[in-house]
């Protein structure tokens, strides 16, 4: 494959953005459908080329496609080039991004139909896809940061798409600022790496870490800084708070941003810089711990939400925690494998939730029920995705989750047990959703119906992948492609996995979670109400989200910063600096005295006509009106006098 086509993959969505953002807005305002077609065509082109790139990389020796670099910025010791890495990690990400984006865009044509911001929507989606592609393609950490930030900007624009709704505007702002706290760490790491190594080339940096030329505390701090960026972007504890609120965006956006692609950027970044992490035990351990803790922490909140999208949001945070745990204990292939599978099943779950909303007009599960009969397609695909995420054999989630559990058992036993508990919770909350939404009788007051074909088809396509994408590593081939593990036969892998006790254990736990959900929400053997009462304190903690929003927003932001420190600065600025030091010393002290002495000179030396100079400073506001021009003439006079003085002095000295 000619390397120029890699650039085309990247630039097609940008072209779509330019066309839908400006072109159609100006020339085809009355034909909104056009922008949808343009975006879809562009992203489909990117997908086809990405598949070609995958095949090329698979078949090439060394699994890499060289792309010549272009100069971008050279100043002194700073040399930033636009080069690309096209290796297995990149092409896998390309496929995931372009495929999920294509599905989401197809679906959006139905979901966003008739929205007044239709042009804008597709423009933003295209820009977002472009930024994601840039993020995974370029080989310089500064350029990665460029796209990292652009992805953040696009998520801001998409989450706040319905900006007239205060909740959406708030959520967008929150998402941007919270992720930017993480970016602070990423940027600090970039700065540190440049000063330590003189380069920001990802390949070189990784080499330096592998060969030990970059080591010690600098490396650890750099790795931690990068990870802090990933914590923000991938919504890990303690920066996870933005993601649930981000559900205020249109639902297909939720599928694209918090589910499939943007949040995966953090996981990707850690994977891309993995040699740095591998060389620092502390950094790797941090990744594993944050991942493991986030997984269970978010799952607890998922147990009690009644808004279907919120459940999915917390499940996303939890699953991202799994990915981090996989990276921290098992390496790149383990984490990325779950990323790929998760992108398909979680993308699908969000589209399903959107479809349900399209039908029932609400996201509140208490007003749903019985939708299985009227929305068979939505139900079946949603069920497949839920089973997959719960880790049921042989669906995709089973395979990647099993790898994460196995690697954490081998390396971090404590985290392993947390992850095992999370398995039960995951199965429970997903099937709680299934039973509340699709089971029983309809409790709402609308007339639910199946969604149009343009929405159902992408769900089916994602459903197929959510079922089978895990099979790519049954032979160990996926791991080998990413550089580690060994391969074996397909059938051997498919059934041989049960020669180990762990998968049995995981399946039993998942089954227990499903059973519990069935008992509570379908068969009603157990009353949810009584269980909730029994666990009242826990229920309160979970449903109030551990009061972290309150802590961040009310305590830290409002109280400590806005009413405390910043208000203190403001008072200091207006009273001490402005009224105090500046007006006392500068305005009245120095300038007034300076003027007075000049005035004295002026009265004696020139004539008495000029007065009121000192008044300038004394009653500035009031008196200025009267003597406006006078003062300036005086001032002009002083300039002239000053110049005269210089000339005279020079004359006498020479």
């Amino acid at each position: 494959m000619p390397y120029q086509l890699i650039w085309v993959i990247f630039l097609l969505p940008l072209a779509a953005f330019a066309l839908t953002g400006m072109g159609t807005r100006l020339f085809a305002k009355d034909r909104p459908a056009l922008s949808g077609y343009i975006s879809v065509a562009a992203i489909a082109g990117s997908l086809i080329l990405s598949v070609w790139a995958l095949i090329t990389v698979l078949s090439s020796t060394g699994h890499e496609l060289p792309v010549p670099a272009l100069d971008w910025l050279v100043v002194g010791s700073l040399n930033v080039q636009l080069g690309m890495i096209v290796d297995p990690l990149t092409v896998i990400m390309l496929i995931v991004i372009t495929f999920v984006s294509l599905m989401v865009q197809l679906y959006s044509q139905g979901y966003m139909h008739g929205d007044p911001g239709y042009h804008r929507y597709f423009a933003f989606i295209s820009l977002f896809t472009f930024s994601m592609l840039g993020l995974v393609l370029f080989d310089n950490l500064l350029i990665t940061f460029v796209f990292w930030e652009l992805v953040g900007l696009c998520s801001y624009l998409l989450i706040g798409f319905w900006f007239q709704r205060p909740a959406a505007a708030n959520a967008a702002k929150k998402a941007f600022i919270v992720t930017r706290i993480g970016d602070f760490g990423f940027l600090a790491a970039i700065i540190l790496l440049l000063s330590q190594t003189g380069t920001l080339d990802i390949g070189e940096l990784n080499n330096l870490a592998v060969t030990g030329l970059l080591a010690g505390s600098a490396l650890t701090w750099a790795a931690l800084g990068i990870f802090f960026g990933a914590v923000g972007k991938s919504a890990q504890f303690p920066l996870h708070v933005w993601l649930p609120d981000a559900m205020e965006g249109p639902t297909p956006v939720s599928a694209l941003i918090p589910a499939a692609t943007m949040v995966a950027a953090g996981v990707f970044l850690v994977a891309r810089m993995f040699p740095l992490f591998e060389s620092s035990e502390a950094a790797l351990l941090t990744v594993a711990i944050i991942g493991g803790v986030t997984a269970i922490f978010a799952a607890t909140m998922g147990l009690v939400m009644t808004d279907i999208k919120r459940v999915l949001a917390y499940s996303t945070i939890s699953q991202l925690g799994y990915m981090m745990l996989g990276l921290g204990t098992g390496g790149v292939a383990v984490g990325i494998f779950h990323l790929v599978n998760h992108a398909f099943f979680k993308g699908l779950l969000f589209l399903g939730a959107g479809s349900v909303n399209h039908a029932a007009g609400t996201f509140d599960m208490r007003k749903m029920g019985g939708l299985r009969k009227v929305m068979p397609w939505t139900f079946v695909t949603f069920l497949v995705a839920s089973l997959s995420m719960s880790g049921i054999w042989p669906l995709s989630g089973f395979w990647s989750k099993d790898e994460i559990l196995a690697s954490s058992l081998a390396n971090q036993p404590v985290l392993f047990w947390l992850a095992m508990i999370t398995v039960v919770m995951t199965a429970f909350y997903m099937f709680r959703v299934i039973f509340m939404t699709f089971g029983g009788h309809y409790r709402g007051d609308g007339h639910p119906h199946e969604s149009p074909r343009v929405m159902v088809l992408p769900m089916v396509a994602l459903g197929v992948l959510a079922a089978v994408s895990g099979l790519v590593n049954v032979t160990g081939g996926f791991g080998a492609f990413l550089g580690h593990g060994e391969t074996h036969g397909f059938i051997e892998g498919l059934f041989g996995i049960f020669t180990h006790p762990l998968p049995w254990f995981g399946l039993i736990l998942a089954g227990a979670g499903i059973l519990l959900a069935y008992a509570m929400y379908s068969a009603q053997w157990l009353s949810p109400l009584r269980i909730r009462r029994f666990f009242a304190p826990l229920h309160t903690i979970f449903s109030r989200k551990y009061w972290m929003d309150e802590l961040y927003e009310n305590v830290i932001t409002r109280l400590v910063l806005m009413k405390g420190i910043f208000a203190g600065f403001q008072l200091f600025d207006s009273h001490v600096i402005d009224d105090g030091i500046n007006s006392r010393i500068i305005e009245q002290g120095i300038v007034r005295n300076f003027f007075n002495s000049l005035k004295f000179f002026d009265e004696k030396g020139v004539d008495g006509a000029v007065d009121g100079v000192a008044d300038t400073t004394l009653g500035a506001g009031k008196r200025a009106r009267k003597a406006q021009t006078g003062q300036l003439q005086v001032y002009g006079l002083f300039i002239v006098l000053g110049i005269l003085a210089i000339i005279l002095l020079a004359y006498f000295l020479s």
Partner: protein
Amino acid sequence: MEFPFLTLIIFLPVVGALIIALIKGLSATQIRYTSLLATGIPLVLSVILFALFDRSEALAGVIQFEENISWIPLIKAFYHVGVDGLSLPFVILSALIGFLVILISWKINMRVREYFAWILLLQAAITGVFASLDFLLFFIFWEIELIPMYFLISIWGAGRKEYSAIKYVLYTLFGGAFILAGILVLFFATGSLDMVEMAKTDLGAIALAIPAVITFFFFFIGFAVKLPVFPFHTWLPDAHTDAPTAVSVILAGTLLKMGGYAMLRINVTMFPDVSELWAPMLLGLAVINIVYGGAVTLKQTDIKRLIAYSSISHMGFVLLGIFALGQVSMTGATLQMFSHGIVTGLLFAITGIVMHNSHERNITKLGGLAKQMPNVAIMFALGGMGAMAVPATSGFIAEVMVFLGAFSADVVPGAPIFTIVGLLGILLAAAYILWTLQRVFFGQRLEKFDGVKDADRVEKTFGVIFIGLMFLVGVFPTVLTDIINTGISPITSLFGG
């Protein structure tokens, strides 16, 4: 003799001002077009200058388009103008802002003749500062700028305009006195007013009447008032808040840059040893500017005052880049000045439209305007992207260069720590920009603003020019960094870089 580009760029606005002032009976429209011409031609000339400027490394630090004529032989004062890589970007910026400001002032209806005459005179003075290579000439341009500023704020301003105007004059005068003292010290020691010669002279080897450290701070205080640097910054919010829109744009666009430019041209270049010695303290001030300025910005409720305080924070990055004394950091600081001129110029211009059309400037009373004025909202959002350093805008690359350069410059001890603290500035910027955007433009549409007009054609025109340049520099920073670099590299060599 070569074509006198710089003289024309500086003095054509003066010609315009004289025509407007002296020819009676010009209609308002004629005055506007005369002004447009008197700034448009210099803009075209400055673009030609940009194209003709020789960027080769061999000419680093060499003055181009030089004009040097004896002026007051008695004190060896020359009419000496020229540009190198450091000053050219500012000459272009100044010509550009000067032109756009005429468009921004298009709706001025009060005392039109005087207004445009003063604006044109102001324009000439600012450009003159950047092009002067003779201390006396430099100082005269520096001080003359005060007079039009005074009238523009006190007559066409709003609120406590007389107070703000006087305050501006006093502060600048205060700073100017120090600058004059510094110039006199140098003049008596060397007998020359030539800034180029002075830069080549080793002032450490010459006995100055006043120690070099104090002379350094004479200049520094004068320039710090202008930039402004904490604690000399309080004139800025008042002047900005009460000035007419166009004057705010000039203030943010070019006037503040006189301070940063002069620090590089005079403090750093002529006193490298003192700079290096005192840099840690100045970096501390820079960080205070960034963090403190950003924090106070968040407390503002007047939309113009808010942007004024954000300027203080952004100028902190400039100070950080300059006194980290590294090649990348100083290039970044220069780029940041250019970028801030465009970005904040745009924000002030847009804010002016909001205030003019909605008759409201209190953020807590604004809201939902994106529905009534979509184009204004888009332009403000794009300007905000630049202010909070989103990639692809000029603000991003400038600030990142400052950070990267300051951290790794290795000239000033402690610079890495200051840099890391300074990074907080981009967080604060995101907070105040997004919060403002939300409070002014997002949320429910308010009925009281129904019927508020969106940007008209003239306003869209200057908006698009600002935005286009912001992205041009952000995506292809080499258009400027190549030039700036030739101006900065001779300075870097003073620090063994």
